């Protein structure tokens, strides 16, 4: 069963950490990835650019209506906003996708992740049939 471990951290605080120190921190993340790989639990990982580089699209106003075999929003306008979807104390900074027998095992992997030391990790299973390979 595939799970997404969503790593949240204060990205403004993270940006203040000197490069050399951050490189060492990333080595602990590489070691964690190696442990996942050794256990056959690793699927994928990515780090995201800071949340202030995000843009969020939102349809504003209008009504959703069926037309010509699809749905369209009539009268609404698609707006592009600066920043991430949610304005939160910590921000999504990256993720691991892992393969684990169940939520308990996935939580054990999350607790072992170095990122659990500096921010919360949300663990979510994938919808059946829509998980990554």
């Amino acid at each position, binding site marked *: 069963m595939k799970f*997404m471990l*969503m790593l*949240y951290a204060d990205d403004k605080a993270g940006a203040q950490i000197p*490069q050399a120190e*951050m*490189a060492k*921190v*990333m080595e602990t993340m590489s070691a964690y990835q190696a442990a996942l790989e050794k256990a056959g639990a690793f699927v994928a990982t*990515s*780090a*995201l*650019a800071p*949340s202030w*580089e*995000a*843009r*969020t*699209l*939102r*349809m504003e106003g209008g009504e*959703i209506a*069926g037309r010509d*075999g*699809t*749905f369209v*929003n009539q009268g609404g306008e*698609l707006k*592009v906003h600066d920043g*991430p*979807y*949610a304005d*939160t104390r*910590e921000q*999504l900074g*990256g993720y691991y996708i892992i393969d684990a027998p169940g*939520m308990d095992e996935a*939580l054990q992997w*999350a*607790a072992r992740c170095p990122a*659990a*030391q500096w*921010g*919360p*990790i*949300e*663990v*979510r*299973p*994938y*919808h059946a049939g*829509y*998980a*990554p390979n």
Partner: protein
Amino acid sequence: MRYMMLIHHDETALSQAEQKQLWADYAAFNDALAKAAGGETGVRLQPASAATTVRATGDRTDVIDGPYADTKEQFAGYFFVEAADLDEAIAWAKRCPSHRYGSIEIRPVHDPKSGW
């Protein structure tokens, strides 16, 4: 540049939409993605209610039911696109059926070659 497109939608509104049409739209969108934007289709997570959040404080690890952020719309899934710039990524977000039920966050993926 590689962008992660994070879909946040209102789970209740989505469940009330005409399902056959919605998923036909999604199938068409995924086909277009697979052909044009690097061969990857989108993925879908289980509802936010199936999430668990781990937070470590010193030696203590708290395990909390539910997602990290309690929001009007919920993080539901994502897809990746290879796009020349933000405008091209925005065009892909506009094609995603979920933009009708919430919002789509566009985040550049960090390139490790550019350092930390």
